[in-house]
Every structure is written in C-alpha cells, then in structure tokens.
C-alpha cells in the first residue's frame, strides 16, 4: 500500500533534528533525525530501552527535549514561545495503557476535549463522537464505562477519542502491547483504515507484520540512536546492520 507523500513544497508533517534527551545522567536519545511526510506511516521498532517511546513522547512534548529541534508542519514546537496546548490538540496520541477517563462514559470520553478545547457545542461534539465510534466499530457502546470494555475495545475508543479532535497526525505508542493476542487484530484493522485514509502516523510498535504491510518507512532504533531506516520490506528482509539483524532474528 503506498501513500501520497504530500504536495510538493509542503513542509514535512514531523521533522526531528538532532534530538537529545537525558533523564538525569542517563542519555536516552543521542541525536535523532527523523522525517515524516504528510500522509506517511513511519514505524519505529527497536529493543526495549532503545528510546523509541521517548522519541514519540518528545514529538508532542510529553517529554521536554534536552536539545535539538522538532518541527511540526514547519512550526518549531521546541521554541519556548510555541503554544503547546494548541499543538497537542492537532496531534493525536494513543497510549499502550489506553488511558481512557474511567469516571466518564465512552461518549463523554470522546466529547470532553472537543467541548473544552475545541469549544464545540454539546450536540456537535456528540455528533462527531458518534461518527468516530461507528468508524472504530463501537457505535453500540457509547454509554458504557471503560471498565466494562475489553482492552481492544478500550484502545479503539481511545483512537476514536483522538480522531474526534480532527488531528492532523497521530502518534501510536505500542498500542497493542497490553492487549490479549486475539484482540490485537481489531485495533490494527482500525489503524490500517486510518492509514488508507491518508492519516499521517508515527507508530512505535512490535507488530512487524503491520510495519511491513502498512508502513512507508521503517526506523530501527537501538541505544538512543537510529541504526537503520528505509523501506519496511527492505529493512525487514535484508537488514544491513548487524544490530538490526540480531534484533530481527529474535522477534521474527
């Protein structure tokens, strides 16, 4: 599946330049450069502790980069004057642990940010929410509480919650890692549909099949640096670097 790579001359969706991030003395990211074009699906793989989740969390500033620049649609978000809240409203983020709001129904989960951040009316928010719930196949569960849903359903609600904000791009942080194996497929199917619609996506994942089938670019990280990147099929079938080969031989 190939994606349109955006109109020529358009700024890249996400442009990460020489990104460093340290937690205390522990340098987790040691100079990362990543480029995500509009409509592209970039998958990031690597062993645990390689810094891939930290990279993703830096892109919507859940982690503050130690140094380097991140540009989202040409605007430098690492600039101290950047409006972080406005930026985050345009970038959807889906977490490993779903992070639905447990004290609200599914419908409220989808509406609250639309009303409080996007300033939509209640009825408009509900309409958008129902449309997105239908999209992830959960139209009949709008009055349930998150605790009453399976992990896979919760994760699809989380995706619908982000979609309801009409984001320009989505970040996925190991979104299937906490799911029972038989529930993974439903979530991946929703993500595939999104990719097919041309959503710009940056996906940290262990699902090599998804990366191969849906990704436009695969990035392999280890030890806080990008070891290898390129066409997913190419990297997965013919890894050039020995660290990539070692990692893939363990997971494939």
């Amino acid at each position, binding site marked *: 599946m190939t994606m349109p790579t955006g109109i020529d001359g358009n700024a890249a969706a996400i442009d990460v330049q020489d990104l460093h991030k340290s937690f205390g003395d522990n340098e987790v990211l040691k100079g990362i450069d990543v480029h995500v074009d509009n409509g592209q699906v970039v998958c990031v793989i690597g062993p645990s502790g390689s810094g891939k989740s930290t990279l993703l969390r830096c892109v*919507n500033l859940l982690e503050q980069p130690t140094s380097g620049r991140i540009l989202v649609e040409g605007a430098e978000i690492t600039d101290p004057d950047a409006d972080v809240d406005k930026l985050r409203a345009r970038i959807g983020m889906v977490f490993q*642990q779903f992070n639905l*709001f447990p004290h609200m129904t599914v419908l409220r989960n989808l509406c609250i*940010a639309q009303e*409080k951040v996007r300033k939509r009316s209640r009825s408009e928010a509900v309409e958008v929410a129902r449309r997105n719930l239908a999209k992830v196949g959960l139209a009949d569960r709008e009055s349930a509480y998150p*605790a009453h849903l399976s992990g896979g359903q919760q994760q699809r609600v989380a995706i619908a919650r982000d979609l309801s904000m009409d984001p320009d791009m989505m970040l996925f942080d190991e979104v299937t890692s906490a799911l029972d194996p038989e529930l993974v497929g439903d979530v991946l199917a929703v993500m595939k549909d999104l990719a097919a619609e041309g959503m710009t996506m940056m996906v940290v994942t262990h699902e090599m099949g998804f990366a191969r089938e849906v990704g436009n670019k695969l990035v392999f990280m280890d030890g806080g640096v990008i070891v290898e990147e390129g066409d997913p099929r190419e990297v997965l079938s013919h890894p050039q670097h020995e660290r990539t080969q070692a990692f893939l031989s363990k997971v494939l």
Partner: protein
Amino acid sequence: MPLSPRKRAQLVRYIQYAVLVVVVVVVALVADWGEIQRAFFNWPIIKEQFPDVLTIALKNTLIYTACGFLFGLALGLVLALMRLSSVGPYRWLATCVIEVFRGLPALVVFIALAVGFPLAFPDYEIPFGNLGTVTLALGLVGGAYMAETIRAGIQAVPKGQMEAARSLGMSHTRAMISVVVPQAFRIILPPLTNELILLTKDSSLIYILGLAIDDYELTKWGREGMNSNANLTPIIVIGFCYLLITVPLSILVRRMEAKAGRAR
C-alpha cells in the same frame, strides 16, 4: 493424642465463644439494672427532650458541621494544590498551614478564634457571628487534615490520565478540573467520610463561644439537660442523635463507593 489443625481451630473458636458468653453474663449480673434505667433511660426525661433536641440541637449540629466541612473541603483542595505547586513559596506556605492546624487541638483553634481574635482585632469581628466562627474553626482544622488526604488522592491518579488529557490539548488546569480531581475524590471518599464524622463531633467545641439556647448543638444540649435534671438520660438521647447522623452517612458513602466501584 495431638489435635489435627482443623480440630484445634474449632476448639479455639469454641473457647472464644465461651469467653464472650461469660463476659456478657458477668456484666449482666454485676450491673444494677434498676439504677441504670433510672439514670440512663428515664422515660419521662426522654419524652421531655423531644422534639426540641431534634429541631434545635440536631439541626444546629448539622448546620455547624456542614458549613465547617464545606469550608474545610474548599480550603483543603486549595492547600493540596498549593502543596503540589511548582512555585516554592506556595508549597512552604501550605505546609506551614497544614502542620499548624493539624497539630493544634481543635479546642485551641476555637479558643484562638473566639477569645484571641476579638482581643487582637478589636475593630473587626468574624462575619455571621457564631456560625462564622465555628465554620472558620472547623474548616481550618478539617481543611488541614483533608489537604493531605486530597494531595494523596491526586497523586494516586495514574500519571497516564494527565498525559492523555494534555495530549488532547487540555491545559494543566483544565485537565486537573475535568480529569484528575474527580478521580481523586473517588479514591479518597472513605477518608473524607471519616473527616466529616470527626467534624460532626468536633462541632461540640462551639460551647466555648457561650451560646443562647437556640444555638445549642447536641453536646451542649445534653450537658444542660444532664445538669438541670441531675440525670444522664439527656446524654444518652444526644448520643443516639449523633449516631442518627453518622450511621446513615456511613451507609450512604458505602453505597456511593459501590456505585463508583462499578464504573471503575
């Protein structure tokens, strides 16, 4: 022959029952039942207490407690948020207020407000008279306790909740109001109930203010009744009234917890 563990457990249980029965029987034999009835459950005195003990004393206890608790809750929330603030002086100030009012006996706070305040600020008075003073005193004491409870509750909400709210574009304040604090209050419902019950009893300290009979709350009412009748029956009556407040409260909160549990 040594007993098997199950037999031994059964024997221990029988012994415990036997001890209970012996204690009850001994107490029943030793007690002077005629005197107990005359001094504690004197029917004419009980009848005389009603309905005023309900319409005046119980009502006042409820009002004093509710005002003190609500003020304390608001104060506690503000102090908790100050304790979690990134601004150093806010944290220090909140810590001082909490340590002082948590450490002082409630009676001392009442005396400070009732006697100390008029001496220190002769040109001012606490608004709303006795009700204002009791609200302030109970609120300060309760707020200091609740601040630490609320802080613990806020910190018990998983970090991912704040992150999810922020990643949807909510400001820190908005995320606190809509996402974190409502969940924190669910977590701390049991300790908050405890605090409300403690305040119900601490509201009796208002006697220090010197009250007109219409302002009597339960304990003051009971003491006056005890003195004028030279009989302990009024104390039993007001004790019953306290339970009339606290027991339904406990049941209500248990129901709310069960409901919140279903949504979790």
